[in-house]
């Protein structure tokens, strides 16, 4: 009973890694108001996986994980650039969203019977992660944390006051794009564990709830960390007890916490 299965252990490590991304890059994405971006990247990842399988089937072996990373990076840069030109994140993400979804459907049609592998990314499963998955996740998350720690102040300045930042020689587009890159890579690794839909639940909702409850950036990040850990661990625990997939349960807990955050009196009104 007390011997945790290796799968549960990996799930727990994954939750910790996800929570670290949620409390850093996830929080800043909420500040930027670019949460839709997370869903956009998730679809690019789906397209990337399908394309990777397609290449492997018809041409030469190509690790699909690498392809998803390429797609995520490409879409993050494209959205960063489009935002710079049109000055509206929502529109640029929307266009990229449509583009990547079309690509995904196209490649999925071409890989026919193997499509289920790519579709697995839509659901994801915290309790089905391999040793290799967890290793890749850890490396990617360490990289994200490192870059976040180095550039957090400039990113925050760029999000809060792009013109003021620019006047100080801090290029806001550069740091916004860096944030998109961090989140994009984060989405790739997290999706394996929680799937395309719930990556949003664990990356964005904890930060959104945290923002409602706190006055400062650090407090928001800590709340996001706490909520994300609670949702992930809760999801795994309930899953072990019930046999239902953990990501769905984690998503439910995250949304529940968000609604609870409304109960706190005197929360800050956010325009």
């Amino acid at each position: 009973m007390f011997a945790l299965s290796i799968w549960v252990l990996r799930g727990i490590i994954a939750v910790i890694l996800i929570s670290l991304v949620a409390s850093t890059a996830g929080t800043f994405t909420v500040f930027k108001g670019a949460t839709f971006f997370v869903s956009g990247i998730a679809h690019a990842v789906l397209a990337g996986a399908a394309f990777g399988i397609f290449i492997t089937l018809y041409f030469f072996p190509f690790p699909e994980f690498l392809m998803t990373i390429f797609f995520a990076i490409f879409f993050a840069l494209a959205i960063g650039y489009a935002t710079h030109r049109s000055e509206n994140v929502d529109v640029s993400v929307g266009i990229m969203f449509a583009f990547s979804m079309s690509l995904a459907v196209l490649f999925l049609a071409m890989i026919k019977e193997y499509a289920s592998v790519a579709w697995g990314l839509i659901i994801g499963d915290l309790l089905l992660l391999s040793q290799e998955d967890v290793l890749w996740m850890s490396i990617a998350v360490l990289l994200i944390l490192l870059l976040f720690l180095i550039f957090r102040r400039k990113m925050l300045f760029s999000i809060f006051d792009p013109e003021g930042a620019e006047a100080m020689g801090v290029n806001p587009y550069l740091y916004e794009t860096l944030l998109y890159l961090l989140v994009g890579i984060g989405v790739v690794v997290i999706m394996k564990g929680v799937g395309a839909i719930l990556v949003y639940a664990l990356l964005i909702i904890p930060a959104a709830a945290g923002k409602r409850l706190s006055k400062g950036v650090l407090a928001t990040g800590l709340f996001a960390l706490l909520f994300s850990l609670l949702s992930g661990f809760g999801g795994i625990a309930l899953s072990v007890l019930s046999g239902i997939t953990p990501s769905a349960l984690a998503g439910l807990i995250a949304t529940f916490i968000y609604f609870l955050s409304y109960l706190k009196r005197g929360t800050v009104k956010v325009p």
Partner: protein
Amino acid sequence: MIEVRNLTVKYDGHVALENLTFSLEHPSFLVILGPNGAGKTTLLKTFLGLIPYEGEIRIFGKEPREVRNLLGYMPQRDRINRSVPLRVKDVVMMPLLVTIGLKKEVVKRAREALRGVGMEKYWNADFRSLSGGQQQRVFLARTLARNPKAILLDEPFSATDVATKMAVIKILHRLKRERTIILVTHDVNPLVECTDKVLLLNRKMIGFGRLIDVITEENMERLYGTRVPIIRRENVCYTVGGDIHVRP
């Protein structure tokens, strides 16, 4: 000291500023007046070295890019993302943290700057919960915390009530003894006492000089494209036009 000679700024071929020439001593107080789209923000950004230009600009003897750390900039209010959960101290320290890092001296300078605008007791407050006028004062403190030799303010009075406006002007009045202040506004009326020079801008330079010489019925008509009546009484004159009330 700022010297501008034959300054022209284009955005993809579209001319935003055309052939401006003027010079300003240090320290002094310059007010820039002009209709929407006149190029006022463009001029400030050109001073900050953010926009390529033709002609010549010398700020304290150097090119704009070289004097960035001598200039403080307060952007137009509507450009700020006010949903970020920041404490007042975080807002004031932000530029210093980016350039210097978290040091004792930074905290001290931020505190002094906040005291200077009468917002010291809000040090730990949630920036989002402040009124528009209080936020403007925090921004002014943020600009001053870097101790710039010249301060560029883009419409600092938009969405502020009379009391805040007067409080900010009082601060600026005190600052102008040792700093050059360049302020973009749509209403020169409350600034009469501190203004040294006025620049009337509508892509081209319509006028530059002392308030009393520059604000004439003829110039105002050229500036806004509509007749702006001016009322003169003793040595003070008021111009009244739409929402513009100018008392040189």
